[in-house]
């Protein structure tokens, strides 16, 4: 039974982690492509159009990867989490079915038109199809976060005698206080990934002294989008998400901040340290006194409940994992703001394209927004454990009753092998597109 649950969780974690590498880029990138296309319509400078078309190629590759790795996500609710699906399908099925009907059709119909229809439609319609692709991908994010929010903070339902969760208030799903902060936080994080990728590729071109005009355009656009999104992801959206956690999941908040004991006179903020679960303390701790109380409640001596105040059976299942995920996300987020502020400052001084060391930093930043996005999601998901539906349905009660551990391990191994292949192909093809670079049309 424990093996079975472990493999079910591993398979979902592995497939969703791999899957989300792609949508996190495409959601943000679709916004930037719409921006490039819009600038082209305004200025008629062909470079903007070429930039839009170049990123569309990267987008199309990522989108295809997102689609093929996304279908398994929807299937796995039923295949591996049948009991959960049976009990809550009437509710989370709503938002998931809406995602299929409202966003996937929109995205996929217009993506085909955007990719193959430029000559058939003319520029204005072409811009419009790009805009619809953007709309579809952001609607998809919204409905997924609505589903996620219901699991974190269930609303608008009642539980029948047979244990089934049934919806009694449809609009509550969308006025869930968990939804809006999480959605904006997530979308901004996606814009971070896209803007860092765009500026990183731009820096790569400049440092290699090729496609210089595009290099400059990508770096400039990337760092401006990057600075705005990095700031907004922390404040106000990240802050609001954290306040939701402290209010509705205080035990999770204590675990992710590494607060083992309630402290008199206000809690410190932990910057570095390793949770020691046996002795219930942090090793090698570096912390700043009272800051956490201030950030959380705007009062230096506000009390924050430590893990000692909660029942151990409701502790998040993997406290060190949760703690690290959260700290990696926050740490990287801080670095993002610093680097992008520096880059924009250099841009303002008109020295960015010559500051080699800044360009090197920008180029090497490429993987880190992916790590920050992934650890951010781990914070949310590990923080919800041991529950599937917070405080109401445990993860151990949601798995498929008839699928044995051996069968799940078989498919988990299959997914690992297949995704390894997909990952290699993806890197090879993305490298090829980037190496070739955008081209001016021959006249």
């Amino acid at each position, binding site marked *: 039974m424990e093996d079975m649950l472990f493999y079910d969780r591993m398979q979902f974690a592995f497939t969703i982690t791999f899957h989300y590498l792609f949508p996190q880029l495409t959601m943000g990138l679709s916004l930037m492509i719409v921006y490039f296309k819009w600038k082209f319509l305004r200025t008629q400078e062909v470079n903007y159009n070429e930039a839009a078309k170049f990123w569309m*190629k990267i987008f199309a*590759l990522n989108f*295809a990867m997102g*689609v*093929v*790795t996304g*279908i*398994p996500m*929807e*299937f796995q*609710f*039923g*295949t*591996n989490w*049948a009991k959960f*699906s*049976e009990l809550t*399908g*009437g*509710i*989370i*099925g*709503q938002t*998931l*079915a*809406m995602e*299929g*009907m*409202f966003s*996937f*059709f*929109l995205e*996929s*119909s217009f*993506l*085909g*038109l955007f*990719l*193959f*229809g430029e000559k*058939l439609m003319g520029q204005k319609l072409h811009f419009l199809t790009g805009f619809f692709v953007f709309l579809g991908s952001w609607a998809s994010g919204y409905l997924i976060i609505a589903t996620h929010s219901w699991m974190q903070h269930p609303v608008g339902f009642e539980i*029948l005698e047979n244990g*089934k969760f*049934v*919806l*009694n208030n*449809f609009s509550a799903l969308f006025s869930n206080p968990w939804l809006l902060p999480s959605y904006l936080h997530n979308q901004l994080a996606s814009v971070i990934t896209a803007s860092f990728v765009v500026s990183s590729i731009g820096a790569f071109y400049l440092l290699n002294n090729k496609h210089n005009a595009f290099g400059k355009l990508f770096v400039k656009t990337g760092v401006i989008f990057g600075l705005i999104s990095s700031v907004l992801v922390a404040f106000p959206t990240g802050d609001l998400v954290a306040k939701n956690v402290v209010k509705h999941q205080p035990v999770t908040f204590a675990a992710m901040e590494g607060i083992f004991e309630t402290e008199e006179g206000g809690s410190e903020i932990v910057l570095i340290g390793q949770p020691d679960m046996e002795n219930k303390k942090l090793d090698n701790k570096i912390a700043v006194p009272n800051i956490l109380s201030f950030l959380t409640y705007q009062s230096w001596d506000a009390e924050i409940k430590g893990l000692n105040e909660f029942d151990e059976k409701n502790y998040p299942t993997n406290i060190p994992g949760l703690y690290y995920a959260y700290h990696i996300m926050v740490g990287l987020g801080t670095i993002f703001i610093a680097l992008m502020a520096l880059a924009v400052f250099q841009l303002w001084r008109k020295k960015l394209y010559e500051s080699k060391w800044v360009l090197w930093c920008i180029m090497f930043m490429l993987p880190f927004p992916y790590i920050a996005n992934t650890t951010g999601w781990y914070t949310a998901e590990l923080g919800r454990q041991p529950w599937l539906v917070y405080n109401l349905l445990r993860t151990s009660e949601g798995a*498929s*009753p*008839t*699928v044995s551990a051996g*069968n799940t391990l*078989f*498919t988990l191994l*299959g997914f690992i092998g*297949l995704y390894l292949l*997909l990952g290699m*192909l993806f890197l090879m*093809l993305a490298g*090829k597109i980037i190496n070739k670079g955008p081209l001016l049309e021959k006249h």
Partner: protein
Amino acid sequence: MELFWYIVLMTMLAIYVILDGYDFGAGIVHLFFAKTEKDKKAITNAIGPFWDANEVWLIASGGVLFFAFPTLYASSFSGFYLPLIMILWLLIFRAIGLELRGQVHNKMWELIWDKAFGISSLLLALFFGVALGNVVRGVNLGGVIDGVSTHEAHYFFLPLWNPTFSPQAEQLGILDWFTVLLGVVGVVALTIHGANWIIFKTNSDLNEKLKKVVFNLSIILLALVVISLLVWHVIEPKPFHNFLDKPWLWIFPVTTITGLFGLFKVKTFRKHGMGFLFSTLFLFGGLTTTVASIFPKVLPSTNNVNPDLTLYNVAAHEYGLSVGVYWFAIAAVLVAVYMVIQYTIFKGKMDDVGYGEH
């Protein structure tokens, strides 16, 4: 309300099979009949801008199944665990074959992805036929052994096959001679369908040959359909009782037969879309006839201990189903608009669309 969502779901699944069916069929034609680079190009151009949107019908149908019939979704997806995950793997292979082939100009690269695309298309067509076979045959709900359930009454698990390969065994498998027979029907029908799509959407040199292929395969399809009907009593002793009760249901088998016989005239059609129209009729009729024959069951039980799953005992609660009608109506209109736009802009022949050229 349950009945409304049942009709919605079945319609969506039928649309999925008709749309992605031509993609799979095109893949099979690609595997067996496309010899030259030009033939292959014609085929990928014919499905290129559509396949992705077509696959959305599968995801959307899955979503509607999840929300309207959560118990059926949970029971069947966990019970058919292995084949479903394999279908996912095949869908992935098929998609990357199609998308990646044109990215590198190298004979070996192209060969690998051509085969990946063709073979996964073939296996998918087979699996979907097998899936239909499993649904109408029914499963051992509750995992009954010697008259005792080993799970909750609506859960089960099927291995890929059992040693006897028989649809009448107590412990069933996914593959038995009956379900494989329907799988073969699926392959033949979708090959015809895909060939018709290519004839419809291209001016390829392949088209004359494909008309002969459609004609020959239609003979085989007719034979397979007759054989299936002759052995159907093995899984359902009274397959016609619904049709005797409600004579208007005969419209479905009549549609199937019209489609099938229309296919024999493929060589004489002036309009290139006629063949596609008839294979669509055949697929639509075939699917609806099959599900109508077991109605209101959605997954029959093969034991006497646990009851069949019907659309009434697997549905979600009333409020959710009612409120869903509002958003679904809006979404359905939007989807129709997208499809009209998409098929208007890509109307006519697709030879010049340049799919997969980078």
